[in-house]
């Protein structure tokens, strides 16, 4: 795993919101093809960590490298980086004024200059992959939460990014819909996608993740393979977290 090239690197990254330090001197590397679950209590900084990668949040110090380079500050470079790093949101954020098909085709048509035909074909293939081919012409408001999130994943995949970030993708879903979304994510993992997932789904973490990163109070407390994390937890903090999650 450490042979693979580095997809994302954090070098001494710190961030505060006002007086509140949210990331404290974070240094960590993520490699190509890794499926990493980032977990921890609320306020640990895990969502912020993800969001700083694609500059949805700024950082106060340190560097973040994407595919070996630190993207510059020009809009062009940031936009180019975001095409390579997909982002799936907790609240799906589908565009309600567009159909499912148009949601997926928008970026490929405008940014990758795909023709209408090519974009539609790609979209249909993706919708089939996530099991929603019949919903191509539906509007987002007609879909359940689980379906919306799967469309959101398809929309991200349409840009063919090598890396996808998932920010609590199932936290806003009713329990019975969580499975269908996790199934799609597992499929992606099996296909070798580089994935960083902030999630509370420990079952997914155990079965699919290559690595689990546990954060608390803005710091990385533990970073281990699932087997070790769950059965031979090192830190007291992580142990406490796990026992709470199990009894939830």
């Amino acid at each position, binding site marked *: 795993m450490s042979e693979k090239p580095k997809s994302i690197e954090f070098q001494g990254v710190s961030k505060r919101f006002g007086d509140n330090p949210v990331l404290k001197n974070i240094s960590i590397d993520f490699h190509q093809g890794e499926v990493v679950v980032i977990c921890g209590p*609320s306020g640990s900084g895990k*969502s912020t960590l993800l969001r700083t990668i*694609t500059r*949805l949040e700024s950082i106060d110090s340190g560097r973040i490298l994407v595919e070996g380079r630190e993207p510059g500050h020009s*809009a062009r470079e940031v*936009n*180019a980086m*975001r*095409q390579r790093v*997909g*982002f799936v*949101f*907790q*609240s*799906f*954020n*589908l*565009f*309600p*004024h567009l159909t499912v098909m148009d949601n997926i085709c*928008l*970026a490929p048509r*405008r*940014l990758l200059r795909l023709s209408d035909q090519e974009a539609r074909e790609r979209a249909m293939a993706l919708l089939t992959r996530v099991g929603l081919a019949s919903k191509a012409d539906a*509007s*987002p*408001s*007609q*879909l*359940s*939460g*689980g*379906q*919306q999130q799967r469309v*959101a994943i398809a*929309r*991200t995949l349409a*840009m063919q990014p090598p890396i996808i970030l998932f920010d*609590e993708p199932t*936290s*806003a*879903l*009713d329990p*019975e*819909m969580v499975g269908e979304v996790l199934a799609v994510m597992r499929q992606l993992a099996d296909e070798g996608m580089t994935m960083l997932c902030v999630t509370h789904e420990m079952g997914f973490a155990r079965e699919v993740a290559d690595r689990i990163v546990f954060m608390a109070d803005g710091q990385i407390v533990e970073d281990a393979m699932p087997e070790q994390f769950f059965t031979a937890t090192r830190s007291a903090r992580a142990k406490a977290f796990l026992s709470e999650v199990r009894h939830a």
Partner: protein
Amino acid sequence: MWDILETYWVQLLIGYYPDGPLGGLAMTLILAFAGLLLAMPAGLTVCLGLLSPWRPLARLVELFVFYMRSVPLIVHLLWVYFLLPLAIKGAPLWLVVLVVMTLFNGAYLSQTIRAGIEALPRGQYEAARSLGLSHGRAMRHVILPQALRNMLPSIVSQFVLLIKETALGSVIGLHELTLEFMGLNDTLGDKAIPIFTLLGIAYFVLCYPLTLLGRHVERRFAGPSRGTPASGAQAPTA
């Protein structure tokens, strides 16, 4: 009262055209339409200026909007009445009114449009940018279509205001509906009450259907275009 209408309806409708300037109801309507047609892009431009990532521009536009909103419309009219002919020789009265209405309503519309944009969940903009779309493209394809749709009722009511604003053109001598009626009052002498009652009715007939349209549009768009799923989602946590 209605006999006044019978006798003078031509003049009230189109002024002294073709023997003189176009006036009356025709002028009022044309001005209101033209005003709306120009105020919309003006409002959009001003709004985009307000939201521009380039601070100096945003500040400048803020000042403009603040000024337009702090000074009464009639004062704007008087000011442009004297100023415009300096820039454009022989500027006609209707142009003075059009320029003022465009700028004035543009400033107000920019606030309406901005409210519409800011009412959208932040996630919409974040999702658009996260796909790699530029700020401009995100606004054009994701934010503005939704904001304008939500703002349609406010925009319709702005149009009603525009129609009423044209009446102030009478102050600088523009031959719109109100001035025609005022002229009629001078001609007929002692018929002020029926004349101005008719004028009130005229504006009512113009504006009320539009107000109803606005309500209808509001009801239609208050519906499912909000993006909340039919089932299966709770409010986001963490």
